[in-house]
């Protein structure tokens, strides 16, 4: 799946080909949201799984 197809992808208004991909992580000590800039057309790697909240 491409980033742009995910509901967790938030394109930049000034450049929709790039955007933030948000992930939810629950580690042994805390829960947090993390984000990094990605290309809309790139494939989401398996390690970055989708999440629901």
């Amino acid at each position: 799946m491409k980033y742009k197809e995910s509901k967790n992808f938030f394109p930049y208004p000034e450049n929709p080909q790039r955007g933030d991909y948000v992930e939810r992580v629950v580690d042994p000590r805390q829960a947090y949201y993390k984000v990094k800039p990605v290309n809309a057309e790139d494939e989401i790697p398996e390690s970055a799984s989708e999440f629901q909240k």
Partner: protein
Amino acid sequence: MAQAAKIQESIEDLEKKQEWWWIAEKKRSKRLDYLRKAVWKKGAIGGNYAPGVKVDLEIPVLFTQMYNWWKFDPPMLRRAKANAHILDNMTIFITDHAQLVGYVGTTPNTLLWRIDGASMVNEELYNEPGVMPEPEQASLKKVADLNAAWAGQTAVDKVARILDPEDAVKFLSGAIGWGAPTSAYGYSGKDYEFLFAQRNGFLDIIEKIDEAIEKAEDRTMGAPGPDILPLYERLQNWDAMKMILEASIRYANRYARLARIIAENYETDPTRKEELIRLAETCEHVPAHAPRSLQESLQYDHFVQVLARIEALEGAWPARPDYYHWPMYHKDVNVEKNITREEALDLVGEFMIRAYEVGGFGPRWAREGLQGITGTWVWTLGGVNKDGTDACNDLTVAFLQAARMVRVANPTFAFRWHPKVADDVMREVFECIRHGLGYPSIRNDPVLIQNAMHWHGHPLEEARTWVHQACMSPCPTTKHGVQPMRMASATANCAKMVEYALHNGYDFVVQMQMGPKTGDAAKFKDFEEFFAAWVKQMEWLTNTLVRTVNLGRYKDPEFFGRPFLSATYERAVESGLDAVSPVGERGNCWITGFTWVENADSLAAVKKLVFDDKKYTMAELLDALRTNWEGREDMRLDFVKAPKWGNDDDYVDDIMLRCLREVARHSREIQCPCGNTWPLLPENVSGNIHYSSIVGALPNGRRLGDALYDGGISPGPGLDKKGPTAVLKSCGKIDHVGDGRAFLLNQRLSPTQLAGEKGYQLWKAYIKTWADLGLDHVQFNMVSDETLRAAQRDPEKYQEVIVRVAGYSAHFVDISRKTQDNIIQRTIQGI
């Protein structure tokens, strides 16, 4: 479960048992409880990182990509571009319940790896157990490739290549000192007057930079001449500063955007939604603009700290939060009543937690020398205003109260005591100590202000702004007083002075001729000959370290380059020079004297038993030392029984004063790159344990392997047999203004004796004696042997017990066995 059972116990019962950590859990808010437990501790347990803590590989990859791309740019500009690339692209995160954001890694369990500091640290990282992210094999390959790219190209590699080869080899032997002569690791002061007192946001600074550029361009486009030539380089530096400030604003805006995304798309709780929107507004406002509220003020400060640390792995955290955040606290809590005091305490507590979680990969010597923590985050509280009036305020108290609730080992506080401090503030200080935090340490403000004027010529008003630049050393926060970078490589393993005087400069541990050949000690005719050899070794050792760090400091703008730090320094913004450049700085250097008191005790023992009583010959002593006292236990005990520092005994105290005055004389002969002095500052952190198997047997009765004394001017553990007043009297013979920059004193007190109101009055009387004698520092451990032994037996149950190690506190379970035992060995003084 033990925890569930403790929650059932009443606060009164827990107070009786002095189990303060359980009380803290009961008293703190749910938010603080969550955030406190959420922290991944980055301090090493002894010398190893805790399970689950991993090195961050995303940041060094981003940095290396862009740094190599801009290979023809000058140092500061090249680094600004590479660091801006990190800020624009690194993963960022927001922890549930957090109101403050910003971290030096990409996930909460990661350690920052500053790859451009030292190849040998990079190599160490490759070999380090447990820190590689999964999958380990892929990470090892990535690290090996990165290391290959940086081999010989880091800041320390560059300094080591131009050092005198003899100095380089001897310094890097690990025997005489530690630290690194680069601003890639070090203790950078912050120009708080510029950022907070003058209320400059990053956009305000950019405006100042634009003005400076315009002025410089007027000249570079005008009449040619030699005076305009340096400006071309400075213009590039200004570009670099501006670029990194703009990237920093974008970085903050990334947090704002994430907070809004969470609030609008994922968060269902309306209260948390509101918090996230406030967080977003905060990050949209700071660091671009000066703060308008306490939350913005704390967030601004935290962003500055994090951004400076992403640029370089800073080993200290100079700060004076009750002074610089007071205006916004006062406005929010007292004047406009925008938030309650409890809400302010939550913010202050979280501000401490955000600092506690910061950590980077440090070399093993740093981990062993700072066991349990990742750097000396010693925050300064109290003190006086520039006009000499009392600076303590309700935020001072709030910090002291928040500390007892979050109970973090780092940051710790150091309190600037002066005669005008109100009793209610002193009670809060005492409560922190009584609750076993080991902090605040107490600093004698009038003495230290005078000291700053004496050694470095800081004007009175500037001296009064001082903060701890690391554990102990005061540094003003003003334009010309603030020291941008204290490179820790002027940290002397002082016990080597007497060791080398005994062995003609030869080091039997590292098997190398280190110091000058001051003669075969067996042939010394009297104590004066021996002392003269000690003076020569002392001069050689301090010269070697200072040469190294002076060169590192001088070449740093070329070998490293600090665009962000420079952009936050008034004088760098004005001049266009790297902040680390000595130009425009008054100078505030000091030599940290590890393992210092062993010199006085060893010299006194030799004087007594070899030259005065003639019970043993020097040859016998040398033989016993070279065989680590094996088979000479009776003789060793004789040397232990010789006069020892800390018992108000002039025989040894006079030798201590002679030693200090020789160093003080020499401190004015050696100069820093600003032309100022290099006074001694005896203290140890946990270097006394790191060096325990590196310093050979000594005439004070110590063997190779034994912990050295716990440091500063603290007497040897268990050797202060005449009580606390004798300790204070010995220490009071030192001139705390003219004999050195500061002097650390550890004392253990009995928590039982100091319980209740009576305990407070006893402690207050002790502090009065301490102040009357003119000592500049004292810090206390107030945890019983019983608790510490129980913690050794059953560490799981005592995870939250904190102890004062030396210039810092640590969780008892995070320090090595030898360090734990060394703390238990310290005398508990009844006062």
